[in-house]
């Protein structure tokens, strides 16, 4: 394991591979957590008068997730353009 015939600590070796996979998982989780916080804030107003999601809350949550992904896409494209301009 590290050392021996291993190629060092560049992106090729398994340690770096795991680190990269871990970071991608981390990224997705982080996004999911933030999306949850954002959509709860936007959609769950009358919080705990009942234990079920109301029809309105459910529809709002669905649209909220959809719009969150669109914002993600806009930001991603904008940053790509910025990095190409530099």
């Amino acid at each position, binding site marked *: 394991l590290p050392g021996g*015939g*291993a190629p060092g600590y560049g992106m090729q070796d*398994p340690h770096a*591979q*795991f680190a990269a*996979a*871990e970071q991608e*998982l*981390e990224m*997705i*989780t982080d996004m*999911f*957590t933030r*999306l*949850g916080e954002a*959509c*709860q804030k936007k959609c*769950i107003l009358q*919080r*705990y*008068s*009942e*234990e*079920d*999601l109301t029809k309105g*809350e*459910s529809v709002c*949550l*669905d649209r909220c*997730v*959809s719009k969150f*992904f669109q914002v993600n*896409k806009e930001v991603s494209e904008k940053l790509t353009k910025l990095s190409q301009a530099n």
Partner: protein
Amino acid sequence: MFGGYQPSFEQQRMQALVEQKQMKDFMRLYSTLVSRCFDDCVHDFNSKVLSENETSCVNKCTLKFMKMNERIGQRFAEENQKLMEEQAKQSR
């Protein structure tokens, strides 16, 4: 991909990573849930014991939070799937 390593060994390790991550996510979800329901349901500090109203609020809050989380999780998975398919198409 992993020259010199047995795939099965690496796969085991990757799976352990995913399991650790899931456990960690669940714990994060759990502590978010506790602190949110505490924040929203407990306002009176003239007593050190939860009142009936507070307890009932915490229970509803827990259920509502889990249902919300489940619904968002489904939509998130769908949208994430779409996103990956688009990216796969673009990289061809």
